[in-house]
């Protein structure tokens, strides 16, 4: 019996690799297993190698596994590109159609199962992925009936016959594989899971759901990988609550339309990735100086320019902190799990209204697209707080004066009226302005307004700016990361502890304003600090050096080849250091 399984299916893009993984994963999720899926794909519609690696476990997992138990291959390329991940007891199940060749330097076993042939016999070669699912079940000694429900849901609308044919395809794969298996390979039987129903979703789903729960009622966006799912979800879910999504002509229209809607008083969102954020920068400054709430999601991918559009990277950090010309107050938050992505996105709308500034929800491709099992999301934990939005009746303003929308206050936040409110008229401009919003170039006013704007975020209230798992008062190593590296760091930490090292882990959730006071004690009490990040220059490490000091203790652990960190990489590197 095993409590964890790593399974990968691969083939040509457009061949149904995605759905094979999806069906397998949904069924296992419903049995109560925790899943973590990561897709390797290219920026094209058809062709090119793609694979879907799915980890199945009886406990929560948030990282890709180091190795592989089962590789399901629809072509030779899948074997050649992925076999090295297989451990020696691993199994390759390949379509007999392409006469698979097992590489010489692997101890894993290989079985050729006629996926395409069996599917064609049953009516259509399209069902070859179901045959492959069936063959997998045989290795796992898993009852194929667990797929009944999922198959019914996916194919039900095509008629009962299609449902039955697909179940037959699963069975034929199962039977064929079982014949192969007799006396040849060990079964990989999974321990029983707890049978609890849990959500199975990508980070982008959680971001979109978080926006909806957080009161977002309008979105303007431009399609881009890996952020489009957020728009696609809200296009379905906003109309039932009266809201709308506009797919704009470009990224600049998306952000400025979002600013317009926020100025109009509606909680509005835009989401993009690096190239889109580069285009939105001027408008982010407009939101900053006009103190118009704005929520932007940045799902980072490989940069610069078009870069590696379907690959993991965390290289937008500095751009998000400092991006836009001039200086504005801004909040940059970085959820590290799908749960956090939900709650943080909802909270982003509160912060945007309370501090009247742009809020960037930073994600990365691995967090946004990694499909995983998620513990229940609780709606009653979501609050709606609107800050100093004026709702009461206002007194008449004499002598053609304006409402003091930019009143200099102690906490820097001024009362905010929205169009339609009587006696709340004021001017809004990206030009430096006085308390009423009228353009002003006076030096005294400039200082007053700049200081007021920055005062807003001096004492920002943010729940858990640093996620800490710090069991040691004094640690040999403090590992620091942000966004999706959390899972790999957690696993590496477990292994390092087993090796006898004292390890603390800090994950930065509030990137800006940087939570120096929260991080400092952990930094001070560690002998060495390893900052793990998917970029080439160590942007987070540099932020820590700049804000917390201790540069001599800091080691940058960087990866920018497009792939997420694996636990063993972090484990090995940390061991080398001590």
């Amino acid at each position, binding site marked *: 019996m095993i409590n964890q399984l790593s399974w990968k299916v691969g083939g040509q893009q457009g061949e149904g690799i995605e759905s094979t993984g999806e069906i397998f994963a949904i069924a296992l999720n419903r049995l109560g297993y925790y899943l973590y899926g990561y897709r390797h794909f290219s920026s094209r519609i058809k062709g090119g190698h793609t694979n879907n690696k799915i980890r199945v476990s009886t406990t929560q997992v948030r990282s890709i596994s180091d190795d592989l138990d089962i590789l399901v291959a629809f072509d030779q390329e899948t074997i050649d590109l992925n076999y090295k991940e297989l451990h020696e007891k691993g199994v390759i199940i390949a379509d007999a159609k392409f006469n698979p060749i097992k590489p010489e330097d692997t101890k894993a076993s290989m079985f050729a199962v006629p996926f395409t042939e069996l599917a064609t016999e049953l009516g259509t070669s399209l069902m070859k992925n179901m045959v492959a699912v069936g063959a997998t079940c045989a290795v796992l000694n898993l009852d194929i009936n667990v797929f009944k429900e999922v198959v019914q849901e996916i194919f039900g609308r095509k008629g009962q016959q299609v449902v039955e044919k697909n179940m037959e395809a699963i069975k034929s794969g199962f039977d064929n594989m079982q014949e192969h298996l007799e006396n040849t390979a060990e079964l990989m039987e999974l321990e029983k899971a707890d049978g609890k129903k*849990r959500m199975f979703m990508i980070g982008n789903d959680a971001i979109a759901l978080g926006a909806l729960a957080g009161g977002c009622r309008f979105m303007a966006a431009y399609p881009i990988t890996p952020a489009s799912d957020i728009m696609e979800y809200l296009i379905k879910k906003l109309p039932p609550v009266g809201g*709308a999504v506009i797919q704009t002509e*470009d990224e600049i229209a998306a952000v400025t339309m979002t600013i317009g809607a926020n100025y109009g008083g509606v909680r509005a969102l835009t989401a993009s990735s690096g190239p889109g954020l580069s285009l939105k920068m001027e408008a982010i400054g407009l939101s900053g100086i006009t103190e118009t709430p704005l929520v932007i999601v940045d799902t980072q991918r490989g940069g610069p320019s078009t870069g590696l559009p379907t690959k993991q990277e965390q290289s937008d950090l500095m751009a998000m902190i400092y991006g836009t010309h001039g200086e504005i107050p801004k909040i940059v938050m970085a959820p590290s799990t799908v749960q956090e992505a939900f709650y943080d996105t909802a909270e982003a709308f509160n912060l945007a209204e309370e501090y009247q500034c742009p809020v960037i929800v930073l994600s990365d491709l691995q967090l946004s697209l990694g499909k995983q099992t998620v513990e229940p999301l609780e709606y009653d934990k979501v609050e709606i707080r609107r800050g100093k939005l004026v709702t009461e009746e206002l007194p008449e303003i004499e002598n053609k004066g304006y409402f003091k929308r930019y009143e200099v206050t102690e906490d820097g936040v001024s009362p905010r009226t929205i*169009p339609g409110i009587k006696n709340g008229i004021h001017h809004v401009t990206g030009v430096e302005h006085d308390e009423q919003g009228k353009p002003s170039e006076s030096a005294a006013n400039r200082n007053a307004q700049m200081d007021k704007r920055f005062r807003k975020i001096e004492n920002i209230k943010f729940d858990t700016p640093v996620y800490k798992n710090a069991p040691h008062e004094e640690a040999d190593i403090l590992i620091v990361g942000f966004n999706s590296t959390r899972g790999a760091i957690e696993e590496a930490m477990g292994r390092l502890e087993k090796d006898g090292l004292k390890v603390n882990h800090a994950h930065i959730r509030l990137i800006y304003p940087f939570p120096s006071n929260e991080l400092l004690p952990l930094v001070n009490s560690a002998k060495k600090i390893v900052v793990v990040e998917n970029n080439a220059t160590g942007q987070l490490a540099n932020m820590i050096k700049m804000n917390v000091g201790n540069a001599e203790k800091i080691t940058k652990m960087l990866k920018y080849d497009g792939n997420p960190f694996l636990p063993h990489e972090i484990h090995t590197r940390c061991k080398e250091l001590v």
Partner: protein
Amino acid sequence: MATFKDFRNSVKPNWCPGCGDFSVQAAIQRAAANVGLEPENLAVISGIGCSGRISGYINSYGLHGIHGRSLPIATGVKMANRDLTVIASGGDGDGYAIGMSHTIHAIRRNVNITYIVMDNQIYGLTKGQTSPRSATGFKTKSTPEGSIEQAIAPMEMALTAGATFVAQSFSTDLKDLTALIEAGIKHEGFSLINVFSPCVTYNKVNTYDWFKENLTKLSDVEGYDSSNKSMAMQTLMKHNGLVTGLIYQDTERKSYQELLNGYSEAPLVDADLTLDQAHFDKLVDEFM
């Protein structure tokens, strides 16, 4: 009920004496009063340039944004509150150069807003460079030998982009301009009004006198029918675009908001920000 004086504020415009934009400002204020608006129910969204300052000179809600982006901002404001009257405005550089893409797409989208372009065929605030509306041969600081590019024909462009309301005016024709702005506000969809608004400082070619000499009023064109798109196109081409009046109006096509599936009939700004627990549970269930 508000009068045009209620749309005045205490800010003194920083335009040059004689600038065409003064009349546009007055026309907007008159039109707003004539259609029965209260200042708080009008939002003027403007771009960057001399004309972009207009939102600061009208007593109403308003946002002076970034160069070329008045239309997406105005669209967002209108989406947030469909009960507001939203006017976007700016110059020819704002709308036909840096913001041209938004102009075309706002036309296609047909959101119920009015867009007033103050067209002076020059970049004034940056002190005299060529604009996409400058005629071929026009000499400016950036085209010392004369412009070798073709000028954009905004009215023809609007017709081909599928505009439902296309009008053109001259800033000295205050009465006609006011009437066109009123018609634009009342139009259920996107209305584009291009206003020849002379720059007295940097454009010594397209002057008040030049326009008076070259413009043709559509009311003087015999048998002109503003519901006939091909007639509109032919007339524009015949007069090299130098006509004033309502060029084209399509009263049949519905506005974006009316066609938008599920979009709240009440202003979105009043929508409930919370969900029923049952609604949330259903959303969660879809991921199980």
